[in-house]
Structure formats: structure tokens, C-alpha cells
């Protein structure tokens, strides 16, 4: 009898942990999601479509997608830099830097929102430097991207760190011995090896940015058609008691979450297959 089979028979608590996990997920996670889909269903296709395809709604999609893309592009570069420095070099203050990267996870979004808004307001530290040059951040799309970038940067760093640390010793050295330059070794050896994890970190950050609310609303200015994100419009529809409208927008965002989750799982699957082969 193999060890795995023996272990499976031996490990207790399958029934209990299975029961607890599944009923909790059903009660707390799946039932509300089902209720949302139900509400969208009973609202009728006409009203639902009117809600998600209105000019104001489409404007929020365009704004949310472009600002989230900008935030993710920034995080791809800075997140890569941070992960690289944290895993490859030993320097004084490395522990502190490693701890501080998680600040956006630990700091409530509303706190981040009011702080960023104060920093980038015309009277703030950054706003005072940028506004005289005609660069408007607070109450403009750039501010939304700043808030999204702040709240989602740990996703990129934390996805990259383990794979950068696990890079096999000797592969880079072998490439150097074959006469490759620094850039060539980075571009052809290191980067391809961490690419799946890097992309899944970026996908997580992007998905998180699409759904961001707390940090964004304080800095956005929230002007319909110009600086209004999809999460805020959903909230406004609720306050107007336009439930079909809110159901439609929330279902659209739920679909976007599922799509990004699918993409992230596909990337993980790609990585696992490569690891199994390599």
C-alpha cells in the first residue's frame, strides 16, 4: 500500500471539515451571489440592458478600465522592482521594506482615500507641485489611477517574490558562461521563468482595481460622465432605488471578476505545467 493511500485512510475529520467548509461557503458566499443573479434575472432583460448600456454606465466602464490599466502598468514596473530588490539583495532595512509593502492590504481603503486626496489636492504636497504645471491629479482620472495603484500594488509584489526566490541556481551562471550579456540573461532566462506569476499578479491587481471603491471615491471628484467609476454608479443606483440598474451593474462586475479569476487560474495552470516539465 502506498503512503498516499494510507494517509488518505488515516487522516481524520474529512466529514466534519467538508461539512463545515461547504455549508459556510454556501451560506455566506454562494447564497448572496445567487440572490444577485436572481435579482438580475427577474428584473427582465429590457430593464437590465437599459441599466448596463446607458451612456452614463458606458462612460464608467471606459473610465474604470483605462484607469485600472494605467494603475496596473505602473504596478507592473514598480512591483517588479520591489519584488526583485526584496528577493535578490541583502541590505539594511530590507525587513522593514518587506513589511511596508503590505501596508495597502492593512490600511483601510477609506483611510488611503482621504490621505491620497489630501496629498494630491491643489493645496497638498504633490498637488502643489503638479498643478502649476497643468497636471491635475485629484478630482481627475489620474487620481483614480493613483488610488487604484496604491491599493493593488502588493498583489504584483507578493505574486513575484516566491518565484523569484525559487529560481534555480546555476541557470544564469550557465548563460553567462555561454557569453550572454546581463540584459540577455535577464530577458531570455529570468523574465520568461517568472512571466506566468508576474502576469497573474498583474491580473489580480487589475481585477482588484476594477472593483475598488473606498480609496477611489475620495479622490475621484465623482462627476457623472467624467470621473465616475462603475462601483460608484452602482452605489448611486441603489440610493436612487433603481434596483434593476444596480443589479445589472453589479452582475456585470461579477462577470468581470469571474473572467479574471478564470484568467488567473489558467496562468497558474500554465505555471504548474511548466514546472512539472522543467
Amino acid at each position, binding site marked *: 500500500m502506498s503512503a498516499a493511500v494510507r494517509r488518505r485512510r*488515516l487522516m481524520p475529520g474529512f466529514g466534519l471539515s467538508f461539512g463545515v467548509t461547504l455549508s*459556510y*461557503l454556501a451560506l455566506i458566499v454562494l447564497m448572496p451571489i445567487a440572490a444577485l443573479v436572481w435579482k438580475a434575472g427577474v428584473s427582465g432583460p429590457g430593464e437590465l440592458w437599459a441599466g448596463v448600456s446607458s451612456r452614463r454606465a458606458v462612460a464608467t466602464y471606459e473610465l474604470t478600465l483605462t484607469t485600472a490599466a494605467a494603475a496596473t502598468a505602473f504596478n507592473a514596473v514598480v512591483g517588479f522592482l520591489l519584488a526583485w530588490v526584496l528577493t535578490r539583495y541583502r541590505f539594511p532595512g530590507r525587513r522593514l521594506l518587506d513589511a511596508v509593502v*503590505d501596508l495597502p492590504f492593512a490600511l483601510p481603503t477609506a483611510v488611503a482615500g482621504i490621505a491620497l486626496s489630501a496629498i494630491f489636492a491643489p493645496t497638498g504636497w504633490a498637488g502643489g507641485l503638479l498643478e502649476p504645471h497643468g497636471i491635475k491629479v485629484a478630482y481627475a482620472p489620474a487620481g483614480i489611477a493613483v488610488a487604484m495603484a496604491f491599493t493593488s500594488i502588493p498583489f504584483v509584489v507578493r505574486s513575484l517574490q516566491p518565484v523569484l526566490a525559487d529560481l534555480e541556481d546555476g541557470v544564469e551562471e550557465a548563460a553567462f558562461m555561454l557569453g550572454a550579456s546581463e540584459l540577455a540573461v535577464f530577458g531570455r532566462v529570468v523574465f520568461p521563468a517568472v512571466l506566468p506569476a508576474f502576469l497573474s499578479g498583474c491580473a489580480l491587481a487589475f481585477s482588484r482595481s476594477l472593483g475598488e471603491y473606498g480609496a477611489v471615491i*475620495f479622490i475621484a471628484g465623482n462627476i457623472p460622465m467624467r470621473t465616475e467609476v462603475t*462601483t460608484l454608479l452602482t452605489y448611486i443606483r441603489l440610493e436612487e432605488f433603481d434596483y434593476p440598474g444596480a443589479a445589472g451593474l453589479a452582475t456585470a462586475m461579477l462577470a468581470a471578476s469571474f473572467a479574471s479569476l478564470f484568467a488567473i487560474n489558467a496562468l497558474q495552470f500554465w505555471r504548474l505545467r511548466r514546472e512539472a516539465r522543467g
Partner: protein
Amino acid sequence: MTGPRRLRVGESAPVRLALVGAAVVLSALVFGAPLVMVFGRAFAMGIGVYLQKVSDPFALHAIWLTVLTSLIVVPINVGFGVAAAWLITRHQFWGRRLLTTLIELPVSISPIVAGVAYLFLYGSLGLFGPFLDAHGWRIMFTAPAIFLVSLFVTSPYVARELITTMQAQDTDDEVAALTLGAGGLQTFLGVTLPKIGWAVFYGAVICNARVMGEFGAVSVVSGKIRGKTETLPLHIEVLFNDYNTTGAFAAASILALLALVTLAMKTISEIRLQRARAAS
């Protein structure tokens, strides 16, 4: 061949210095500036005004409700996290990967979507609305709605922490205990729990930070009734929109301090977990 033997990319002194320098300067700006802003603004009018702002009756009630929510939500999600991690890492069964994805699902869902989903489940016009109304029960716009939606939003944190930790551990000790005749619960408490204690602690700390700071989902389901269903993050929003900036930042400073304590606890438990791994 000339020069020293090169083992890895980016090991030359100028490259190292440039990259570490850039990372430190960027981090100080990105992570440091908001913190300095929060504490600077909170104490801008002096400590007297600060104390007056945080001891305002509405502020005190918001703090109390936030702490109460955490006291209810964190233990439940620790229980769920332990059960889920035990199931995922100690058993093989059909659908295990799908279940892992399902456990992680709330991380990818917008807090606003979570709030809307709960409204359509328990609200008057929701799925259970008619049933609740018929019995005279109300969940939406009460404290229990805040507890429920917080359970949803923060359910993955303990679970994912424990799954990562327990996946990296072998089960030889558990197998030995069970073979020697220990019961399931005895094995868990005596063998597994000491190995994952710091991971449970860290998961609970992160879960607590997310519960206390939850904003979007709570905005939707709480009704934002002052002195009743207003949590600390909602209180910050009200003050900030009223141009009571000092009050808003004073309230925010409490949560910012909580974030700093969370990061310190996280670092401590990581060091402990690393040591335990190195020792075993």
C-alpha cells in the same frame, strides 16, 4: 574570460545600488507619504483637539461597533479557515481545486458587489425579503448586516494563510500520532495546532485589519445610521464630506495605527514561522 565570475543578473555594485535606491525612494513616497499625511493632519490642531475628536460620542460609538464586528467576525472566520485548510491540505477528493478557487472567490469580488448581493438576499425586495417581513425580522440596515457582509469579504484570509502554511508541511507527525492511537481531535490539538499556531495568528491579524477597515460592502448594507450602524470607516467618510478634516484624520489615525500594528505582528509571525521551519 575577463572579470569576476558572474553568477546572477544584476549583481554588479552600480546596478544593485541604483535598484535598491530606487526601491527605497519609491517606497518612502508611495507608502510613507499617506501615513505621514494621516498622522500629521490628525495632530495638526494639537493633542487636545485630537482627543476631543476621537472621544466624540459618534466616534466612540463607531469605534465600539467596529470592535464588536471584529470580535464576532474574526473567530468565525478563524474556525472556517482551520476547517477549510484541514480539508484542502490533508485530504484528496474530487473537486478540491474548484473548492480552493471558491474559497478565494471573495478576494476577487468588489466590496460593492458583495454589499449589493447581500441587499438582494436579505433586503425587503430581496430573495428572503418577503419571508423576513412576514416574521417582522429585519437584517438589512442593522448591525447583523454589517457582521454578515464582513464575514463574506474577509472569509478567505485565514483560510489562504493556513492552506499555504499547511501545504508546505509534511504530515509525518500526524500520521505517527494517529498510528500510535491518538484520536483525531487530540492529533489536531497536540500535533497540528502547535505547527500552525503562528499562521493562525497571522491570518487572524490580517482578517481583523480587513474587517475593521471594510468600507464599500458596509456602506451598502449598513444604511449609515449615525450612532447606530456607523462603523469607523463610515464615520471617516461622513466627517471628511462635512469638511471636518481634522476629525476625519483623527478617526483615520486610529485605523492607520491598527495597520502599523498589523504589519508588525505580521513580521513577527513570519519570523517565527521561518524559525520553526528552519528548526524542523
